[in-house]
Structures are given as C-alpha cells and as structure tokens.
C-alpha cells in the first residue's frame, strides 16, 4: 500500500529533477498541486515562459489516468540573465519549482494508487546550452481529502510567494507608445523607486536595454525600448512587474499611441 507521494528523482548532466506533489493523497473531483522541481548545477540556468533573446522554456508532456487533466505551468517570477550588453535572457538559477494544477475526476472509478507521469524537456545553459529531458513519476493514494505532504509543503509555500499575483484592485496600468519606446505608467497609490518589467510576449521590448524608472508620488513610469522585431502597433502590453522589495504582479496594460 502506498500511503504518500513517492517521487523518483532523475539526474541529468547538469540538473537533478523530480516530480513533486503538494498533497500526500488525491481526492476525487479535487485539484492536486504538482510540480517539477529543478535543482541546477551552479552556474547553469533554465528559462522562463518568455526566454528572452535566446533559449527555450521547459515543456511538460503529462501522462495521466483517464479523466485527469493538467493545467498550464505556473511560472515563478524570473531573473534577468545578461551575459553581454547586447543580449538578455529570462530564467532561473540554482533551484526552481514549476507548479502545475492537476484536476482529478469526481467519478469513483479511479484505481488507487494513482500514477502520474511527466516527460519533461528543457534547455539548460551556462555559456553553452544543452537540451536535457527526464521521465518522472509520482504515485499517490486516493483519499477523501487531500492532506499536505510535509516534505514538499515548504517548497510549494515558498514557490507560491514567487508566483506573480493579479494586479491589486485600485492599481492602474497604462502604456503610451512612442516612436522607439513604450512608457508604462503605474498608479499604485504608493511611490515605486525600483521595479523591473518582464514582457510575456517576445519581440515587443528590447530585452537588454536598461529600463528607466521615474518614481512618482503614486507609482512610477517605466520607459521600455521597443524591439527591432516590433513592426505593428500593439493594443495591450502583458508582462510581470517585479518589485524587488515586494511581490511580483501580472500586468496587462492597454497601449495608446502618443503623438510626438
């Protein structure tokens, strides 16, 4: 009898990878928070959903019992990785958990224990890049209510804090589009002196260009250089705003063309 989450870590050349579950058991009709945990060799990195100027984000292919479904990867806030003044990438060093919500069906025909598998493929880079992959498994018992797994819960809790939150009510974000730059205006009710914007869509912003922050009494304005690849106007700018002293927020700002 399997009573708890049983993960089999896989070692690749530059990473140790395991499939983890926040809960010890699966409950019928419930959501299970799973995730692929990467421990990277020092100096090596993997990529965010928008990898920036080079690289490629990890891809998961799930193998689930009938009726189960897996959601999208919930990407923790990235770090900027800039090896040269001309190129900037977005990703993770050291360690990262990429959580995914798995939905269990409510039918009572599920066999216990439940086998969850994932084929993970990722690119790992230092100065050079290597494609790596692993087949990972997790076995979970079915129970009426999902109980936290004390071994993985702290990691899931830590990761939760790194996930970008929706923009708080009362915040306002808007963008004025100039000839060569976007100016993102944030009205948060509080002065912001340090922040960094990570674009979700590639090819909109020049990644390595320094982001100029002008604090205002109730927020800030961030000047973002446009990408050479941006040929058409955009109507909305999506990204993640990271405030170093605080949290990360998902920003979706309408874009208005400004007459110069």
């Amino acid at each position, binding site marked *: 009898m399997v009573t708890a989450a049983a993960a089999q870590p896989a070692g690749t050349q530059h990473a140790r990878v395991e499939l983890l579950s926040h809960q010890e058991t699966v409950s019928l009709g419930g959501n299970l928070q799973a995730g692929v945990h990467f421990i990277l060799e020092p100096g090596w990195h993997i990529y965010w959903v928008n990898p920036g*100027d*080079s690289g490629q984000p990890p891809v998961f292919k799930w193998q689930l019992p009938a009726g189960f479904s897996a959601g999208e990867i919930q990407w923790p806030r990235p770090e900027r990785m800039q090896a*040269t003044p001309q*190129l900037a990438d977005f990703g993770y060093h050291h360690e990262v958990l990429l959580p995914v919500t798995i939905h269990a069906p409510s039918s009572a025909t599920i066999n216990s224990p439940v086998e969850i598998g994932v084929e993970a493929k990722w*690119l790992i880079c230092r*100065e050079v890049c290597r*494609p790596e992959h692993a087949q990972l498994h997790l076995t979970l018992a079915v129970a009426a209510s999902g109980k936290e797994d004390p071994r993985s819960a702290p990691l899931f809790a830590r990761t939760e804090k790194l996930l970008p939150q929706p923009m708080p009510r009362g915040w306002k974000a808007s963008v004025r589009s100039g000839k060569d730059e976007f100016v993102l205006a944030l009205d948060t009710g509080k002065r912001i002196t340090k922040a960094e914007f990570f674009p979700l869509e590639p*090819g909109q912003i020049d990644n390595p260009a320094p982001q100029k922050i002008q604090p205002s009494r109730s927020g800030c304005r961030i000047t973002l250089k446009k990408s*050479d*690849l941006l040929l058409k106007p955009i109507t909305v700018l999506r990204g993640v705003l990271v405030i170093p002293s605080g949290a990360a927020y998902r920003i979706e700002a309408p874009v208005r063309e400004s007459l110069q």
Partner: protein
Amino acid sequence: MKNLRRSILRAVVLMALIASAFAVRVGEPAPGFTAVDSNGKQQHLSDYKGKFVVLEWHNQGCPYTKKHYESGNMQRLQKEWTAKEVVWLTVISSAPGTQGFVTPTQENDYVKTMNAVPTAVIMDPGGSLGHLYAAKTTPHMFIIDPSGTLIYNGAIDDHPTSDQSDIASSKNYVSAALQQSMSGKPVTEAATRPYGCSVKYKD
C-alpha cells in the same frame, strides 16, 4: 597596409557605433558592411546589390544549429536558394575561446564535411557584423532584397526547439519570405523571434 587595416578597423568601429544608434528594422535599408570570409576574401554587401542576400548566424557547437545541419535542412535551403541566384552568407561571430569559434581552415573543413553550400562564410570573431545587425541567436536569419532593404529578421522556422524531428512539420520563414518577395508580394511574417543559443560575443 597598416594604414589600410587601421582605416578598416575604424570603419568597423564606426559601423558598430552607428548600429547602436540606429536599429536594424525590416523595411529599412540594411546596413552595409565589409567583412572577410573563410577564404580570406573581402565580402562587401554593396557587391550584391540587385540580388537577394541571406545572412545566417552560425555556431557549429550549438544544439539549434546542429538541428538544422545534422538533418541537412540548412544545406537544402542553401542549395535551393543559391541555385536561384540568392547570395547566402553564413556568419560566425563566436569570439576566440567561446563555443563555435573556428579558424578559417577549420570552417572550410566543416563546410566540406557537412556538404554546406553557402556563397561564403564570414569570419566575425570581433563581433562587429553581429552587433551591426543585432544578431542574437544561432541560427538568426536576415534577408536583404535586391534594392538593399531588409525584408526579414528572425527565426529560421516556427518550431523553436532543438529536435530534428520538428523540421518536417515546421514552416520555414526564410523560404516563405524569399518566395513571397520574389513573386512581388509583401512578406507576411517579416519579423519573428529568432530562437537558438545566444551568439557568443566577446562582450
């Protein structure tokens, strides 16, 4: 000779400065350059006025470059398009000591072994041509039309992976842009996110 070399160096530095001031944008004139190829011959972009020119950033150790060379995909493209009078310039901007840096002899051996058929391979260990075009990845593809206008900047195709098995189901942006432009049509996908390894610049 020394003076000539110095003035070339100055021109290259000037080009790099201009590049940082003016972006390379599709629809605008492609910046001119003079560079040395793997046979020691000077390559001037201006010599190819009246022809389509493809620039292919290259690093033979990069898994994404390998995808397109070990599958023969890049060689097929080079063969197909150079047969149609397109000038194909492979560019190596890897700095000495970094992945993909090769001597001209090593590069010529590689071209021979891989049955690659570019018009020429430009040796750019100082990175000035790479910086001039803001080349980001290997591969990173640019197309210049016969009037000297940049008509494509971006990825080789629409599958940003290092898996050879993805090539068959990929849309090749370079072929699409050349086909459209040669038949007098506007290029529908003229700027895409290039994918691959970062170009291994000196700085």
